[in-house]
């Protein structure tokens, strides 16, 4: 971030490398604990997707199928995507905006913390919250929704959604570097809820109007949801490689925007 020398020295000295590794692990641990203890974060990011799933996947549409899969299976993939996206956007978008705007990031940057440890910790915390959500959905689906899923498919689903935290963490950073500490939560909600809906995460795309189905193909959550669906045998739209490419491109774009925000900050009073 401010310098790459931490990374360079770590190549040079093994002691430094081990030390940095320990910092990364500790940073991630405390980042996770920090969010776990903020009820607004841990409850809303975990509870919302789970609650939606119970309502729409378990209570209302028990017998339905979409393509080749049952509604209760389909919605594990789509609410899993929704959950991972929420956990990543809130931890990074709101987290960075507030820590940057209210001076905490500066305290970290003045310390000898390896600069990337900060971002790594946020990514790991988002991935852990994402995994918790996906596992809860799987457990609920299997226990109460008659979901049959092979262990390997379940693991693949989990892996895809964990990787899916990356583009949304990058998106969170882009938001966090431009939004103020007070406006960030509202901004994240304004972006996150509509694109979730329009990507077919709440109501499967097949039930949405044609123009929305077309529009969905430019939305990142749509692409992640398609990848997730295919792991549970759902009928995905489009090629897997296209979805991955889209998400990779989106990640780079967001990191570029975040970088602009970072440099914009450098000339200012905080950053």
């Amino acid at each position, binding site marked *: 971030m401010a310098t790459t020398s931490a990374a360079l020295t770590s190549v040079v000295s093994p002691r430094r490398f081990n030390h940095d590794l320990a910092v990364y692990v500790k940073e991630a641990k405390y980042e996770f*604990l*920090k969010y776990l203890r903020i009820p607004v974060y841990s409850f809303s990011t975990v509870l919302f997707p789970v609650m939606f799933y119970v309502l729409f996947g378990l209570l209302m549409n028990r017998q339905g199928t979409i393509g080749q899969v049952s509604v209760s299976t389909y919605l594990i993939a789509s609410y899993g995507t929704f959950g991972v996206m929420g956990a990543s956007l809130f931890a990074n978008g709101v987290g960075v905006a507030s820590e940057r705007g*209210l001076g905490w990031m500066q305290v970290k940057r003045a310390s*000898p913390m390896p600069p990337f440890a900060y971002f790594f910790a946020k990514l790991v915390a988002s991935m852990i919250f994402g995994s918790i959500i996906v596992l809860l959905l799987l457990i609920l689906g299997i226990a109460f929704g008659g979901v049959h899923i092979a262990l390997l498919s379940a693991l693949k689903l989990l892996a895809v959604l964990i990787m899916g935290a990356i583009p949304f963490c990058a998106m969170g950073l882009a938001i966090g570097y431009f939004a103020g500490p007070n406006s960030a939560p509202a901004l994240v909600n304004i972006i996150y809820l509509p694109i979730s809906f329009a990507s077919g995460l709440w109501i499967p795309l097949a039930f949405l109007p044609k123009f929305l189905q077309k529009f969905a193909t430019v939305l990142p959550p749509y692409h992640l949801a398609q990848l997730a669906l295919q792991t549970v045998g759902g009928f995905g739209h489009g090629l897997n490689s296209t979805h991955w490419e889209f998400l990779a491109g989106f990640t780079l774009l967001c990191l570029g925007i975040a970088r602009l925000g970072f440099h914009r900050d450098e000339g200012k009073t905080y950053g």
Partner: protein
Amino acid sequence: MSASVLRSLQESEQKGNGNMSPVVASLNRISKNYGEVQALRNVNLAIHAGELLALLGPNGAGKTTAVKLLLGLAKPTAGNVSVFGGNPVEAEFRMRTGAMLQVAKVPETLRVREHIDLFSSYYLNPLPMSETLAIAGLESIKDRKFGELSGGQRQRVLFALAICGNPDLLFLDEPTVGLDVEARRLLWEQIRKLLARGKTVLLTTHYLQEADALATRVIVINRGVIAAEGTPSEIKARSAGKQIRCVTSLSIDAVRRMPGVVEVLQDREALQIKATEAEPVLRQILASDQAISGIEVTSAGLEEAFLALTEDHNLTQPETLGSN
């Protein structure tokens, strides 16, 4: 050896032979602009090993900017910054510095010992946790979450984060701002202990009293330029002196004629007297007015001290200078 003895030793040593201990960090002909605003203008500043240098100035003087430059958090517009002979942004030098900055919000759900544990891990040779807790006076609240702490306790945690890596050089940016008298004194004690351990400290403050209580050397900064530099007593002597308030039957003119009196104003029934020193003026007034009452003596306000100091230098500055 007590901190104050050490301090006076250092003071006399520095004064006595005129050669100071080596420079550990410096700003060399530094200018820093934030857009149109000139926060610092051609500033030279050196921090010597083992001293507590107080950077004294009103809000917006450029104190925080100086600290940020020394920490590598901001890039100078012109000039160069040296910390331990190198660039402050490099991790190697950050290992040897600690910083207590003004921060509006610290993660509130982590416990005191967790915050310290994390920051200690950044350093290669940190202090043991128990020692950090002891120095900062946090043993009894180490298991509390940051959000549950009082203002003074919060500042002590930030202080602990600055010292936990056992750094040689500490930056304390307005460490006691917003604290009550007792919390301030407690933090002062802790800062004195650091000095006694041979640490070098740069402290910014807008309290003359704080600089006086802690510093071995004071640099007064105003509107981005250095207005004065010296020991605390030198600075105090150059500042606007004392203010005496009393109810007296003496006329304004009579008081004004007394030696040492700078200015006299009528304030309701009392006289407001500005003097270079309080005692000689008081002696004269007491001798000539038996009925005097309601005597109050105060140090000149910082604002007045700054006015006095900056007027010496004939500074003509635009009004837009210096955002923190």
